[in-house]
C-alpha cells in the first residue's frame, strides 16, 4: 500500500526547470532513496512534499488523498541545511517545534523526555543551543524531527555532520523507525548508506526521473556480465582458452590463487565461461559482480547526459 504518491509533477522557477513530469510512489513502512546529482531537483521535490512549495502541475497524495496543509503534522522533515534558534534553550525549543507540528505541550514534553533519555541528552535540556557542539546540535535536530511520531519522515542528507559512531546510531534509529511503522524518504549522496538502508530508489537528473525501482533490482539491471573467478593455474593459459565472446577486465596473481575478472560480451550462460577455462584452471570461487549504487549512479547519470 502506498503511503505517498507524486503524480506527474512539474515545477519551474522562472526559466529553470526543477521537476519535469516526475512521479514517485513510496510504499508504507519502506525506506525510499531519492538520489541525484546536485541541482537535479531533489530538494524541490522534498519541499513540495512538505507543502513548502506547490507544484505547477501534477498532484501529491498522502494515503491516497490529495495532500492538505494539515498533513504536515504527519511529516517529519530534516532539511539538508540545518539550524536551530541559537539563543533558545534546547528543551524550550524542542517543545516549541513539536507544538508547531500540532502536538500539545503535555504530549510534547512526554515524548521529548523519552527521546532525550534514549539519546543521553537529558543534561542539555536547559542549555542554550549555542553552548552545544555541532554534533550535539545535530542530535537535537534529529529528535525535533521525530518527536511528533510522524508517519512520513524525510531526511535530506541526514549523515552530513555526524561522525561515524553517531552515523551508525542514526542508521540504527532510521531502521528502528521503519520497524515501528514509519515510512522514510531519504536523500543522500552517500551511496553506501543507500545500499544498506533503501528498499526502493528513484534517481533524478536534470529535473527528470531516470531510474526508479527496488534497490536490488536496479543493481541487477545495471550489472554488465562481469564475473570474478578465483582459481589456481597459469593466467596465460587460462586467457588463451577464452574465445572472442569474453574480455578480460582485470587479473591479479598471488601465491595461493589468482583472480580474474571477465566480461561476457554477448551474454549467455555462465556455464560457458566455466567450461571454457576448466582445462587450465582449478576453480576456487566463481561469482557475478553486482554493481554498487555508486556505479549505478554514475552510469545512469552519464547515460542520461549523453542522450
Amino acid at each position: 500500500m502506498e503511503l505517498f504518491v507524486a503524480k506527474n509533477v512539474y515545477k519551474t522557477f522562472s526559466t529553470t526547470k526543477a521537476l519535469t513530469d516526475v512521479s514517485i510512489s513510496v510504499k508504507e513502512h519502506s525506506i525510499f532513496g531519492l538520489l541525484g546529482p546536485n541541482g537535479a531537483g531533489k530538494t524541490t521535490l522534498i519541499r513540495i512534499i512538505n507543502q513548502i512549495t506547490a507544484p505547477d502541475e501534477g498532484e501529491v497524495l498522502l494515503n491516497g488523498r490529495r495532500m492538505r496543509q494539515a498533513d504536515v503534522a504527519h511529516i517529519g522533515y530534516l532539511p539538508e541545511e540545518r539550524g536551530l534558534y541559537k539563543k533558545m534553550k534546547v528543551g524550550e525549543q524542542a517543545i516549541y517545534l513539536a507544538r508547531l507540528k500540532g502536538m500539545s505541550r503535555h504530549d510534547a514534553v512526554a515524548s521529548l523526555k523519552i527521546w532525550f533519555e534514549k539519546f543521553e541528552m537529558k543534561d542539555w535540556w536547559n542549555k542554550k543551543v549555542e553552548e552545544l557542539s555541532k554534533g550535539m546540535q545535530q542530535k537535537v535536530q534529529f529528535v525535533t524531527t521525530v518527536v511528533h511520531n510522524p508517519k512520513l519522515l524525510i531526511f535530506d542528507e541526514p549523515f552530513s555532520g555526524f561522525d561515524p559512531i553517531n552515523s551508525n546510531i542514526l542508521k540504527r534509529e532510521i531502521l528502528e523507525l521503519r520497524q515501528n511503522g514509519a515510512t522514510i524518504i531519504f536523500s543522500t549522496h552517500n551511496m553506501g548508506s543507500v545500499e544498506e538502508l533503501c528498499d526502493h530508489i528513484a534517481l533524478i537528473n536534470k529535473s527528470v526521473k531516470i531510474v526508479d525501482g527496488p534497490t536490488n533490482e536496479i543493481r541487477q539491471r545495471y550489472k554488465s556480465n562481469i564475473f570474478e573467478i578465483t582459481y589456481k593455474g597459469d593466467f596465460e593459459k587460462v586467457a588463451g582458452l577464452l574465445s572472442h565472446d569474453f574480455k578480460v577486465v582485470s587479473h591479479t596473481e598471488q601465491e595461493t590463487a589468482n583472480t580474474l575478472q571477465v566480461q561476457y560480451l554477448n551474454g549467455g550462460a555462465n556455464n560457458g565461461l566455466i567450461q571454457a577455462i576448466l582445462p587450465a584452471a582449478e576453480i576456487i570461487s566463481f561469482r557475478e559482480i553486482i554493481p554498487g549504487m555508486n556505479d549505478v549512479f554514475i552510469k545512469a547519470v552519464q547515460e542520461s547526459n549523453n542522450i
Partner: protein
Amino acid sequence: MNKTLLILSQEYLKRVKKKSFIILTILVPLLFVGIIALVIFLSAQGDNEERTIGVFDESTIFLGELDQEGFTKYHFIPQEEYDRLRSNLKESEFYALLYIPSDIYSSNQAQLISEKQLPFEVIEQISGKLSRYLETEKRQKILDETGIPDLDERLRASRTSIKINTLKVSDKGQAKESSSAVAFITSYAMGFIIYFFVFMYGAMVMRSVMEEKKNRIVEVIISSVKPFQLMTGKIVGTALVGLTQVAIWIIIGIVSMLAIGAFMSPEESQQMSQSLMDSRQMSPMGQEVDNSQVAEVLALIGNLNLPLILFSFVFYFLGGYLMYSSLLGAVGAAVDNDEDSQQMVFPITFPLILSIMLLFPIARNPEGPVAFWASIIPFTSPVAMLARVPYGVPLWELLLSMFLLLLAMFGAIWVAAKIYKTGLLMYGKKVNLIELIKWLRYKS
C-alpha cells in the same frame, strides 16, 4: 492551539523576557523622571556661583549704585585698571568686565567683556539691573520737571500687559481653553514617539527574520506552518511587545507623578514650579509669575482631546508599524547578509525619516500644505498626522488619512508576503529591487 497564536506568543515572550527589554522599559521612564526631577531641583537651587564683575562706568551714573544681586557682585574700577585687565582678563579676579559708555543715557547700550560665552541669565540680570536703575532715574527726572505729584502712580496704573487666552471652539459650540505651547510640545513628542516605535520595532522584525534565515531554521518552521502565518505571528507578537512597553510607561508615568505629588508639600511644589517658570520666563522687568500657571498648564493638557490622541496613537502606531515592519520583514527574508539589508532598508525607511524631518514644520504650522499632504500620504502619515492631532484635525482629513493608511498597509502586507515567501529559501543570490518586483509575479 492555533499555530499563528503559538508563534505570536513565542515571539512575544521571547522579547519581553529579554534583559534589554526590561532594562529599556524600566529605565527610560526612570531616566525621564530623573531628568525632570534634576531640572526642577537645579532650578530650585538656582545659580549659586559667585561672580564679581568689574565695572568701568564712564558715564558715572551708576557709581556706587550697583548692589550685589544674588551671587553677582559689582566692583567699580578706574579706566587704567579697565584698560589693563581688558587684555589680561584671565589673570584677574573678575568674572567679566562691564563697560558703561558715557552716552548710555541716550544710546541704551553697554558692553560686557568676558573670556567665554556668558550665560544668557547673567546678561539678562545685568541688563535688567541697568535698565531698572536708568528707568527710575529718568522717571524721577520727569517727575521733577513736570511737578505733578502722583504722576508716578498714574503712570504705573496706565501700564498695560494684555494676556491672550486662546480658546478653541468645538463643534458643539463649547469653548475650551487651549494652549499652542502645550499642543506644540505634545505634537512634537507624539510624532517622535511614533517614529521611534515604528522604526525600532520594524527593525526588530527584520532582524528576527534575518536570523531565522541565517540559522536555516526557517525551512523547518515553514514545513510546519505557512510563511504567512510565521510572518503574521512575528509581526503581531512584536507589536504587542511595543504596546506592552507603552502601557508600562504610562503606568510608571502616572505612578511617579502621583508619587512626586505625594512627597512634596504644596508650597514646595509651587516653589519648584515657580522657579521652573522663572528660569523660562526671564523678563528684564522681573515680571511677576502667576502662581496658578502650573495648574493652568495641567488644565490645558487636560483640555487636549486625550482619548482621541491615545486612539490615534494606537491606530497610527499599529498602521505604520504593520506597514513598515512587513516591508522590513520582507527585506530580511530577501537578503543574505547585513550589508545587503542596509542597501534595501534605506529606500523603504526614507519616507519615515522624511516625516521626522518634517515634524518641526508640521508642529509649527499644522494647517499648512506640508502638514496636510504629509498627514494624508500613508508613508508619512503615522508621524505627520499624530503631530497634527493635538491641534485638532478636521474629521474628514483624519478619516481619509486613516483609510489610506489601511489601504497602504494591506498593500504592503500583500507585497511583503510574496517577497517573504520567495526570499526565505533563496540563498546566495544578490537581490535588488528589479529582482524583487519579479518575485511579485511568481505564483505560489
